[in-house]
C-alpha cells in the first residue's frame, strides 16, 4: 500500500532562531533535531530537544512543528501544524 511507504530525514539546529551556525552546527552545539516523516500524502516534521552527549532526542520537548499536505500544498508554503494540534484542521486538508 503506497500509504505505508515512508521516507525519513532529519536536520540538526543549534538554536530556535537562525544564527551564524544554524546551517552546519558542530555536534557539541546541536540542541534541536528536526525529524521529518514523508508519505505520499503529507510531510510532517517535529523539531525536538536533542542531547549531543547521549545522542538522544526528547520527543516530549517539541520546539516547533510543520505539516504540509502534498496535494493542496506541494511547495510546502502553508504550514498547518498548529491548526492540526488544535484539531481545527479543515476537513478538505485531511489526507
Amino acid at each position, binding site marked *: 500500500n503506497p500509504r505505508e511507504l515512508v521516507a525519513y530525514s532529519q*536536520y*540538526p539546529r543549534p538554536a530556535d532562531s*537562525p544564527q551564524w551556525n544554524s546551517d552546519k552546527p558542530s*555536534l557539541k552545539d546541536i540542541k534541536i533535531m528536526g525529524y521529518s516523516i514523508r508519505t505520499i500524502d503529507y510531510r510532517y516534521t517535529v523539531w525536538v530537544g536533542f542531547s549531543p552527549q547521549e545522542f538522544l532526542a526528547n520527543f516530549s520537548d517539541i520546539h516547533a512543528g510543520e505539516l504540509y499536505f502534498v496535494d493542496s500544498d506541494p511547495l510546502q508554503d502553508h504550514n*498547518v501544524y498548529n491548526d492540526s494540534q488544535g484539531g481545527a484542521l479543515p476537513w478538505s486538508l485531511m489526507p
Partner: protein
Amino acid sequence: ADALNVLLIIVDDLRPSLGCYGDKLVRSPNIDQLASHSLLFQNAFAQQAVCAPSRVSFLTGRRPDTTRLYDFSSYWRVHAGNFSTIPQYFKENGYVTLSVGKVFHPGVSSNHSDDSPYSWSLPAYHPSSEKYENTKTCRGPDGELHANLLCPVDVADVPEGTLPDKQSTEQAIRLLEKMKTSASPFFLAVGYHKPHIPFRYPKEFQKLYPLENITLAPDPQVPAGLPPVAYSPWMDIRQREDVQALNLSVPYGPVPADFQRKIRQSYFASVSYVDTQVGQLLSALDELQLASSTVVVLTSDHGWALGEHGEWAKYSNFDVTTRVPLMFYVPGRTAPLPEAGEKLFPYIDPFDSASEPMEPGQQAMDLVELLSLFPTLAGLAGLRVPPRCPIPSFHVQLCREGQNLLKHFQFRAVEGDPPVHA
C-alpha cells in the same frame, strides 16, 4: 553468468532539475538518455540534507542517528560502529573497487582517506585542480579575479587549464579502459563536484540559459507559518565575494531579484556542464562494450534550494533540499541488452537544439530513501542482500536500515529474455 560491474555516479548537490524529472528548462540530454534506459525513482529522499552525513549514511546503509554523524567531524568506525560500506561489501565479494572525485566527503568523516583501505582497492583519485575551486579564479565585471559564487570561467584561463570534473571524467575513463581487460568485476564510483558551490563552470554553458528566460522560484518568500528553527540562513553563499558585495541582511535577506535569477542561471548551467561529463563517461562505457555488463546508478547526496522559501542552499528538511534524482540502469532488466555494435549511450551535445526529447524509461512513484542504495545494489549485482539491522545496531558490522527496492525491478519480461524473477 559473469558478475555485473557497477558504475555509481554521485552528483554533488544535484536536485532533480533534470529533463527526465519533468524540468522544462534544464538541458540534461545525457542524463535523460540514461534515464530512458533505467528505472527512475520520482520520489527519492536523502536522510540529511548536507554532504558528509548524507554520504556516510547512504554508503553505510545506516541512518544518521546510527552513524551519529550530523556534522563533518567524526569518522563512524571510531565514533559509532565499524559499519561496512557499499564498496567494502563489493570488495569483499571479489570486486575491484575504485573511487574517483567526491564519493566520500573528504576529511575527518572519511578518516582523511576516503575510507581506504576498507572501501577501495586503490587509493581514491582526487582531481588536482580541485585545490583552486575556492580561490580567486572568477573574473569579475571589474576584470579582476575574485572568489565568487557565480563563476563562469574560460577554461583556458584557469590554473592547470582544466576543471575538477573534467579531470574526474578523464580518470574514470582511464580506469574503465584498464578494467575492460580485468578478470575481476569492478565497482567504480565517480563523484562530480558540480553543481555544488561555487558555480564554477565553462562560461559557454551560460548561453543555454539566457537571463530573460530565468524566472524566480515559484515561492520566493519565507512562508509566514515557517517556524524560525526550520529556516536555513544560507550562511555559506554569503561568504562569497559577489554575495558579500550585496550587503544582505541576516538571516532572511532577501537576495535582490536580478541576482536570484543569476544564481538560478548558474546552477542550471552547472547542471548542463555536469551532464556533458556524465555523457562522456557513459559513451566511453559504450565504446568499451561494457554497457551490457555494467549496472549504472546516478544519484546525488541531497538537493538544493534555489530561492524557494527564501532559501539558497541545502541545510533543511524541505523537499527541495532532501529530494534527489535516483535512477538504475540494469542491462537486460531495465532495458534490452544492446545488440552487437548498438550504442545505448551515444554522447549528446546539450547545445544541439535538434536533439530529440527522450522517451522516458521505467518509473517508480513510491517514496524511497537513499538508504536503500546498499541493499538494492547488492541485490541487483547478485550478491546476498545484507540482513535488516536490529535496533540498536552499533555492534553490527553488516546490516541495512533501508528497504531493498528489488521489487520495483520486476517488469514484464523484456523481449527475448527469460522471465524476470524477483
